[in-house]
């Protein structure tokens, strides 16, 4: 008797997932409001399931593990787009289905990681720099990357849980590129890190603003979108572009090679490119939107914020992360060393 009920239940579950069109999106955490998914379902009848990750490495490993199946949309950053294209994990987009493509800022298209945007369209872009809580007297003094090394910051610092992000801080401090390929230089940068890691309270790339707002930390290296939301909740929180330089990134919508629901994936991407949709996303998660008409629809405060849309002279200090190729090994060695202290 019980077994029969069980069969019925299983049959129901299986059939429900076959009947309705469903879309599996794998996205960064805190990056797409649930409302957007619900509205899309209301309009198209396509149910969107979203799971989240906190690093490109984790996303890449999962996609690879699943044989580029399972997810219909993933959102890799710059360097990982190049890598995934090279390894045949992505499929070319059908641009005839992306009617809203013209909304995108041409400055963000045609970047070196995918020069013709055959496989990727920008979802959001932004910077990774320093947020400080000026209510803390020590944190209020922080002006540059070098200041993060001050021993007074002990136990007050949050760093991203991200290899490139952390090692990049040391490289920039040395005046080198984020994409340094010389293992000797990387090792040199790595030797600088123990002194900054000593200050670290936690590594977090999911929702670093939480620790900042809860005052678990007073200084955080985080993304501009998180910093803007944090400063909206607590005006004492400021975002600083360090003089030594900082990292810029573009996260891109891509379709894995063996995605099942390619048609729905295109529809969803096109939906996200609509100015009013892009504006709603960029208002809730205040990263920089690549969508030009969307920007005009944003709250004027967001539009005018140098945190979200930095002026050109600041942007000039930023640098995009690129794929490191075999040099990655040196970074991984260093990361392991940092995490074990």
């Amino acid at each position, binding site marked *: 008797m019980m077994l029969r009920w069980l069969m019925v239940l299983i049959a129901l579950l299986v059939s429900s997932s076959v009947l309705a069109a469903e879309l599996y999106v794998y996205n960064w955490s805190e990056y797409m409001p649930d409302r957007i998914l619900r509205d899309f379902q209301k309009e198209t009848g396509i149910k969107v399931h979203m799971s989240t990750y906190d*690093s490109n490495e984790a996303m890449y490993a999962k996609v690879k593990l699943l044989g580029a199946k399972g997810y219909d949309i993933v959102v890799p950053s710059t360097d990982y787009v190049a890598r995934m294209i090279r390894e045949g994990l992505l499929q070319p987009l059908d641009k005839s289905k992306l009617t809203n493509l013209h909304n995108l800022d041409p400055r963000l298209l045609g970047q070196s990681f995918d020069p013709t945007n055959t496989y990727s369209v920008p979802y959001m872009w932004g910077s990774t720099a320093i947020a400080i809580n000026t209510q803390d007297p020590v944190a209020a003094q922080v002006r540059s990357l070098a200041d993060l090394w001050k021993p007074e910051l002990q136990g007050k610092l949050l760093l991203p849980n991200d290899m490139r992000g952390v090692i990049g801080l040391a490289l920039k401090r040395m005046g080198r590129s984020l994409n340094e390929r010389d293992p000797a230089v990387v090792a040199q940068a790595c030797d600088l890190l123990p002194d900054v890691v000593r200050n670290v309270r*936690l*590594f977090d790339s999911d929702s670093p603003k939480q620790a900042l707002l809860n*005052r678990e930390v007073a200084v955080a290296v985080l993304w501009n979108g998180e910093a803007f939301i944090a400063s909206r909740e607590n005006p004492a929180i400021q975002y600083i572009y360090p003089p030594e330089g900082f990292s810029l990134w573009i996260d891109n919508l891509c379709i894995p090679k063996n995605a099942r629901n390619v048609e729905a994936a295109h529809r969803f991407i096109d939906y996200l490119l609509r100015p009013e949709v892009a504006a709603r996303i960029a208002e809730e998660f205040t990263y920089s939107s690549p969508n030009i008409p969307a920007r005009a629809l944003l709250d004027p405060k967001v539009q005018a914020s140098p945190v979200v849309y930095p002026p050109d002279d600041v942007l000039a200090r930023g640098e995009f992360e690129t794929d490191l190729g075999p040099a990655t090994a040196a970074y991984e060695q260093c990361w*392991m060393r940092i995490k*074990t202290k």
Partner: protein
Amino acid sequence: MRRDGLFRRLVIAATVVWMAVFGVVPNLLVLGASVSHPSPTTFLSPGFTLGNYALLLDGIHAQILFSSLKLSAAVTAICFGLAYPFAALLARAGRRTRHVLLVLVVIPFWTNSLVRTYAMTVLLNTSGLVNRVLFALGLIDAPLTLLYTTGAVVAGLVYTLLPFMILPLYAALDRFDPRLEEAARDLGAGRFQVLWYIKLPLVLPGIITGCMLVFLPGLGMFYVADVLGGAKTMLVGNFIRDQFLVTRQWPLGAAASTLLTMIMIVLLLIYWWSQRRIHEGKLDV
């Protein structure tokens, strides 16, 4: 009669096949992976090398292993310290109380352990209950840093694993006949002698089971270290997870996993030895 023979053969075959496919083969695969060559594009490339084990026991990785072992040993010791008196009281309590208490120990399991770990963060954060109580009692005047520390990871592990220590200890102590103790006393044995020669050997299998059930998961529960340790403390579990799901060095991760299996086998051998002592000769009860 023929149908019965068929039933028997079918069941035996099913048992053997299941155990082979899900018990033996996966472990052999991991062993195989641990001696394969790493590969940047696929997960591993077949071959034979002991390089992964060498790498595992090299400076950085050995440090992770060692600190995780130390941490888990501390967790096991704390659990034992807390659980032993509890189990002893339980074994001595009346039938009714005993049942109620046992059910109470088990109920938290019905909440997923990740949820219980998360409940700990609610207790330990800067404005959490622990800080508030201490503050209200006037014991502290500024909130303590509790969350995102190694201490928080230890507390979280003790919290989730404590019942795994209580239950086997209780089972062992419950089986222990107090008349043995009395008899030994009557024959003139001292307190220490009773403990060392009578009680300990009989309860030892239970102690070892409890320690295994705490020590081994204590090496592997990566989410406790993530949620309570601020991604700063690395357990062997975090290491293995990262090799498989982040940096894709399957052979190295497989080597670490094989190492865990070897630790387990050593503990199991100790367990069997302690049990055999009971069933053989002088400890026969």
